[in-house]
């Protein structure tokens, strides 16, 4: 079954890659689905969605390969993994709001099952926390979507039609808050992040990879795409709050990350910090910051997934992720050490990695918006050096206090790591590969706001 899933996923990438070059959308599919409800299948792909689609399918394969050693309920595991990937693909594709909401809600159950069945420790509680946060936040999205669709005449959920019709300015901020609630919880941004550290820590490795690589990205993607298209005035009103929230989030999460002893928890908090940067980039609303946000989204998927994979591999071997017990890897297991070195430097945005490019662009953009936020991002970069080096020092150098890792990375683990490392470096060294396809999406995201705020 896993093999079938793999083959299907690869096939999906193949067809995704064939999309031709159209001015705005690489591909746009429109089919009637439930006309009485005003629902249609409206899938559109541009560079951003294509990159995220490829990412999600790639991470899907990685997560299936990574969980090869799980022996419990294998068919259901693979079903849940594919279900998650399929649902997030739907999110990346849909431009019919009801279908979008459909896929959005669809992500919850498989991720819940992944954590609740194959997780570690207090997995039930973590899974329920994840569920409650996301289900309640999802209601905000649902209510806003239903409002947008049901009050129109004729009833339609077509994003473009709604955008063309225009949403009453007085309502935009409210409806945007509904959308933003769902997106910000999924992203997540402090103070809405309480579900994430537990969910990541308790989830199995594959679950963590999909959570960090895909589910968080659906939140970022949603923020990137819909607010500007549907609620330009609302976005102009609320963007400063978004910036402030992002600024707070990135510093807060980075500081909290410094204090963690569980390595997986630490990485989870770094995810929160990076996603807060993405939020700042999106709310900045200038081409630089938006481009940066897009690149951080992709880059973070590589680095966080790889770190979760490595930590999962350590946990499989010694049964602990406690920083106080690990250590001395650079002598006993050099491949581990090398992989850690690369992805730590990616996390702290070392030049040469794609993370650096993204963060640098966000910071550049922030200078155009407000120098204070640029300062905050810079400070958060400094803090990220602190936590990353601390993690690196504890895990890789020194001597192991209690848990010595003796077995180096196996082929099954090495393969995905090499691929992820390759991607991180490739897009870090050749940023044009990402920037050119993202350009149309960035343009689309900047224009309406500029039209409202009067900026050139």
């Amino acid at each position: 079954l896993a093999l079938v899933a793999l083959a299907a996923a690869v096939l999906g990438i193949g067809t995704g890659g064939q999309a031709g070059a159209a001015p705005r959308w690489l591909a746009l599919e429109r089919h009637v689905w439930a006309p009485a409800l005003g629902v249609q299948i409206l899938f559109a792909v541009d560079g951003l969605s294509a990159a995220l689609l490829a990412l999600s399918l790639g991470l899907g394969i990685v997560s299936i390969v990574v969980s090869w050693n799980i022996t419990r309920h294998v068919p259901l595991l693979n079903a849940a993994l594919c279900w998650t990937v399929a649902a997030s693909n739907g999110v990346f594709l849909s431009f019919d709001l009801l279908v979008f909401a459909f896929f959005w809600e669809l992500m919850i159950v498989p991720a819940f099952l992944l954590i609740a069945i194959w997780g570690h420790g207090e997995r039930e509680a973590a899974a329920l926390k994840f569920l409650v946060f996301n289900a309640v936040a999802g209601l905000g999205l649902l209510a806003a979507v239903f409002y947008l669709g049901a009050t129109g005449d004729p009833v339609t959920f077509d994003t473009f039609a709604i955008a063309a019709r225009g949403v009453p300015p007085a309502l935009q901020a409210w409806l945007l808050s509904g959308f933003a609630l769902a997106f910000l919880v999924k992203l997540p941004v402090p103070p809405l992040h309480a579900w994430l550290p537990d969910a990541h820590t308790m989830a199995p490795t594959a679950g963590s990879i999909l959570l960090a690589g895909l589910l968080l990205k659906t939140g970022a993607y949603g923020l990137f795409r819909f607010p500007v298209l549907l609620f330009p005035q609302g976005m102009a009103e609320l963007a400063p709050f978004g910036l402030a929230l992002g600024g707070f989030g990135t510093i807060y999460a980075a500081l909290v990350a410094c204090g963690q002893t569980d390595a997986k928890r630490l990485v989870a908090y770094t995810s929160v910090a990076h996603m807060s940067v993405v939020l700042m980039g999106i709310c900045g609303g200038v081409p630089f910051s938006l481009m940066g946000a897009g690149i951080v989204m992709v880059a973070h998927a590589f680095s966080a997934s790889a770190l979760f994979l490595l930590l999962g591999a350590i946990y499989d071997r010694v049964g602990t992720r406690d920083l106080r017990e690990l250590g001395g890897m650079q002598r006993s297991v050099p491949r581990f050490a090398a992989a850690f070195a690369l992805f730590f430097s990616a996390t702290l945005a070392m030049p040469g990695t794609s993370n650096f490019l993204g963060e640098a662009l966000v910071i550049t953009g922030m200078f155009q918006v407000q120098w204070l936020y640029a300062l905050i991002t810079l400070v958060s970069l400094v803090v990220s050096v602190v936590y990353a080096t601390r993690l690196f020092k504890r895990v890789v150098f020194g001597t192991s206090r209690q848990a010595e890792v003796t077995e180096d990375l196996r082929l099954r683990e090495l393969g995905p790591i090499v691929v992820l490392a390759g991607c991180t470096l490739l897009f870090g060294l050749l940023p044009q590969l990402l920037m050119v396809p993202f350009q149309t999406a960035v343009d689309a995201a900047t224009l309406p706001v500029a039209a409202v705020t009067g900026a050139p």
Partner: protein
Amino acid sequence: MMAASVLAVLPLIVLGTGAVLAMLLAPRARADTVRAAAGLALVVALAAALRRMGTPDLSSAMLVDDGLARLGQALVCATGLGTLAFLRPARPAREGPALVLLATLGAAVLCKANHAATLFLGLELATLSLIALFVLPLTRPALEAGYKLLILGGIGAATLLFALALTYAATGSLTLQAWAGRGMLVSLGTALLMAGLAFKFALAPFHMWTPDAFSGAPAAAAALAGTASKIGVAVVLVRLDAAGPPEPLWHMGLALIAGGSILLGNLQALRQTALPRMLGYSSVAQSGYVAAIVASGGAGGPTAVMFYLAGYAPALIAALCVAASLGPQARPEDLHGLAWRNPLMGAVLALALMSLAGLPISVGFFGKYYLFAALIRAGAWGLLAVAALGTGLGVYVYIRFLAAAFRTAPSSAPLPLPMAEGTVLVAGAAILLGLGLYPGPLIAALRLAFA
């Protein structure tokens, strides 16, 4: 004209004669024969109701035959069919199928009721046959459930009669249109009418019989009480709403008990440890959603009510069917490993619970859409907030049991499942999944009914 009016009441005729026939057959024929005969009657009645779709409306002083009635009847017959299949009365009780037919007949009469007499007749027919169905196993919990329904249903019936009498005194008419009257007596009547219907509809604070029915009575009987009779009462609510009882009493009162039911049902369901009792409280909450749609008084209300019920009925029947196979006190621990002990049951239970929670790929998601959209269009923001809170709580309620089904089991012995239950589960899953992915046909049917 004559032929048309006969065709219009054909479902009732078929159900009634079917019930009598099943009763006659019961002492002599084999249990399966009786069941098959009852099933046949339900199928014929279902077909007769569906055949009338799209034809001109007919109405008399007592009964009305319009799109709403036809759709309601079809739904009622379908739920009757579903519950009949897994009705497992202990020991000789062969009257089961006949009673199912009678309860279905009562609900079908409610769907057509246009007059106080038919309204009361339908309600009592449904309630009395449900009481008999509840006590069929003759166990203590079943008797308790039966007594509770008998006493509370009796109070409900008395309240309803009093309400009808008051309106008659005020307006001199017994048709449902009489509720359009104004004045002290009609207002008092409206309040009592709401209470009487709330007893049957399991709305808080008149819901006390529901959880006991779900945990004590045979699951099929509880499913019938939760679906068929509820569909009938919902149709009555929609018709009364169209008649326009005194305001603001009607909408305000309905909104209050709807909101109360949503909150109380979900909060109580949160605390339950047994699957059937949880479903009982959840059905209180689901009644609350339906009542909230009616209370909002929006133009799309009837469509939303029928869509919601059409999605709710198969989910509840499937969930109760699984619960019945696990025993009346199925705690989350008893559900452990269900997905591996019997994959069909595990999968269908998961689907049914997802549908009740309103999560996608099941029809419940669109039910939730219709609910929210109806409240939004009517501008009922307070009710919308309560419904949103309720669905938020609901997700947690249902997923708790869903997760239990996927946990590792202490024993992995396969769980046997009789053929009939299997059929019900497969059919229920097909409806939930089919309409969840492609709701077009149901929407088309609703359009036809409310054209």
